[in-house]
């Protein structure tokens, strides 16, 4: 039962997009010769390019659909995932961590672990990242096909294979350069194709003030209901938001997940690399004006008798499926032509997210696994060849994962939890590695292992009710979201503690070995004389002030 029927003009817009991205791949192939071209886009990106790609690699269509649906459940609380759960971490990455990443001229985040610690930490992180990325890529593909089938009536297999092969072709041709170009195209398509939904929805409701006037208080405020978890739809306290989301999960993802950080590595100099996440932070901050506003409009429409707005049933559970809210709003407001643009923007979002996974996977596999384990003396030319082959293999494995997810739906719960198994403890390792020179290689390895293992055990323990979630969350009515936030915090703390304890009894590296990798042994880039408007610190301060203003305004 498709709810959107594409007219000829809509099909034309969709087809132009596919031809366009394949064209970009073909065009960029001649500029992709060396390993640095293929895996790091030649390190020639400006801060704007790297910044928009940084944001777009994270901004998949699933985020837009999922959080618009999430807003119908959690209301304004979804904005926490932007204004608390992203901005501070992005600014921290740009100001404090990027100098260590960029100056060490690494190809990947596991590459930093090798330089700072040793091969053990690098391999542990590389393998877990590669597995996580492939699984996530498969899940994204599956969910994309599910949405396309439900909304447009498209065939499962055709939509999965066509989009997967298109991505495989343009990444295999142009590497990270292709990925960055198409991510920037996607950024503009999302704003031009989806922002109008929020605008028209707001107009229909009679203005933004009317939207807020019609929703209940527990959905309308950001912080006012967080003293007591029973007073808000997410069942979480302000402390869970601040330390679970704002600190551990957010910093763990934005500062260590290679998928996004790789875009900043492509910058032409350190200043551009530092500005990349800071530039991205302004646009990240603006996204709730598409996502949350649309979600609130959708929620209001479901409450209005005679609006004719009904969510579709979920294919598995039959319950109203919140994730269909955004496409239903497209169907409600967009005439032919605009429908094509809206659907293309969602498709571009799906595909750019996939492209991000694949380009990060091929780099980590090639540099941190293949070259370390299988062929230590590989030439640059050989590595580019491996990167191209890995892209295709990665795409095929993603499709296989998608088919597995299609058969065994519950596997998705496990896979989506992998983020907090991998990223939350890694942030503790990175933090100690970059800011504490006494941190040792053995401490880092066993700390990481303990953090990842404990996170996994807590997940399984809650899943099979081995213990009450109260012991993790201090709340009797904790939601899954609240469990995730608190689990990330404990995994981070365990990794942090174990790393420190073992470091204190093992031998650290000498200062000479740590030059350029640790604070105190790396030149401070803020001491260079630069005009105010070109300083990363200035723009980070502006971004932070704006985020604080938004939090206070919607308190």
């Amino acid at each position, binding site marked *: 039962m498709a709810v959107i029927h594409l007219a000829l*003009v809509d099909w*034309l*817009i969709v087809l*132009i*997009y596919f031809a*366009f991205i394949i064209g*970009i791949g073909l*065009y*960029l192939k*001649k*500029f992709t010769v060396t390993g640095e071209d293929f895996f790091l*886009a*030649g390190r*020639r*990106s*400006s801060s704007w*390019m790297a910044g928009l790609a940084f944001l777009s690699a994270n901004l998949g269509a699933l985020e837009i659909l999922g959080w618009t649906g999430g807003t119908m459940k959690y209301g304004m609380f979804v904005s926490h995932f932007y204004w608390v759960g992203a901005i501070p971490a992005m600014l921290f990455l740009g100001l404090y961590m990027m100098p260590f990443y960029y100056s060490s001229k690494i190809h990947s985040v596991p590459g930093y672990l090798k330089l700072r610690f040793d091969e053990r930490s690098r391999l542990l992180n590389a393998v877990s990242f590669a597995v996580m990325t492939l699984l996530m890529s498969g899940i994204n593909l599956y969910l994309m096909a599910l949405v396309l089938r439900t909304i447009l009536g498209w065939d499962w297999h055709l939509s999965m294979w066509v989009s997967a092969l298109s991505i495989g072709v343009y990444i295999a041709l142009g590497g990270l350069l292709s990925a*960055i*170009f198409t991510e*920037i*195209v996607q950024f*503009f*398509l999302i704003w*031009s194709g989806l922002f*109008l939904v929020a605008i*028209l929805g707001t*107009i*229909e409701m009679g203005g933004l003030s009317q939207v807020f006037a019609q929703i209940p208080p527990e959905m309308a405020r950001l912080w006012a209901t967080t003293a007591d978890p029973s007073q808000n739809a997410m069942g979480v306290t302000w402390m869970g938001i601040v330390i679970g989301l704002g600190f551990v999960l957010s910093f763990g993802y934005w500062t260590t997940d290679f998928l996004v950080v790789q875009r900043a590595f492509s910058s*032409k100099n350190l200043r551009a690399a530092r500005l990349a996440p800071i530039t991205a932070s302004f646009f990240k901050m603006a996204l709730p004006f598409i996502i949350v506003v649309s979600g609130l409009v959708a929620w209001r429409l479901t409450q209005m008798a005679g609006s004719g707005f009904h969510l579709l049933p979920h294919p598995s559970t039959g319950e109203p499926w919140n994730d269909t809210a955004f496409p239903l709003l497209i169907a*409600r*407001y*967009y*005439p*032919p*032509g*605009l429908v*094509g*643009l809206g659907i*293309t923007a969602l498709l571009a979002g799906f595909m750019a997210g996939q492209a991000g996974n694949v380009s990060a996977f091929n780099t980590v596999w090639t540099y941190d696994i293949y070259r370390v384990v299988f062929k230590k003396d590989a030439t640059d030319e050989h590595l580019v060849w491996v990167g191209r082959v890995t892209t295709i293999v990665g795409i095929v494995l993603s499709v296989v994962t998608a088919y597995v997810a299609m058969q065994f739906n519950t596997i998705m719960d496990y896979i989506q939890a992998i983020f907090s198994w991998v990223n939350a403890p890694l942030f503790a390792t990175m933090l100690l590695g970059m800011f504490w020179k006494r941190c040792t290689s053995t401490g880092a390895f066993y700390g990481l292992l303990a953090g990842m293992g404990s996170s996994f055990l807590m997940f399984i323990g809650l899943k099979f009710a081995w213990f009450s979630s109260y012991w993790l969350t201090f709340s009797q009515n904790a939601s899954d979201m609240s469990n995730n936030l608190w689990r990330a915090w404990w995994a981070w703390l365990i990794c942090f503690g174990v790393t420190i304890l073992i470091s204190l009894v093992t031998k650290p590296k000498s200062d000479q070995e740590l030059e350029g990798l640790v604070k105190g042994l790396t030149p401070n880039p803020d001491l260079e004389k630069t005009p105010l408007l070109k300083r990363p610190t200035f723009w980070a301060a502006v971004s932070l002030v704006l985020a604080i203003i938004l939090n206070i305004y919607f308190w």
Partner: protein
Amino acid sequence: MEEKKQMLSVWSWVGIILSVYGLIITGAGIYYLSRPETVTALHRLNPSLWWGAIIVVAGVLLLLAGRNR
């Protein structure tokens, strides 16, 4: 990014696709003006017309930005 082998700037690529899309959407807006069977909520606002025009302007600006690099 653009210097090596005179690569066409990414802004030009974005400018091209936005201009093309903007023109198609504006054209569709004009075409469907006289067809009352394509009724959507707020269709009286003719969103294709003005939003399409905004996309064309954005596309042209990006093309100009790409040329200056």
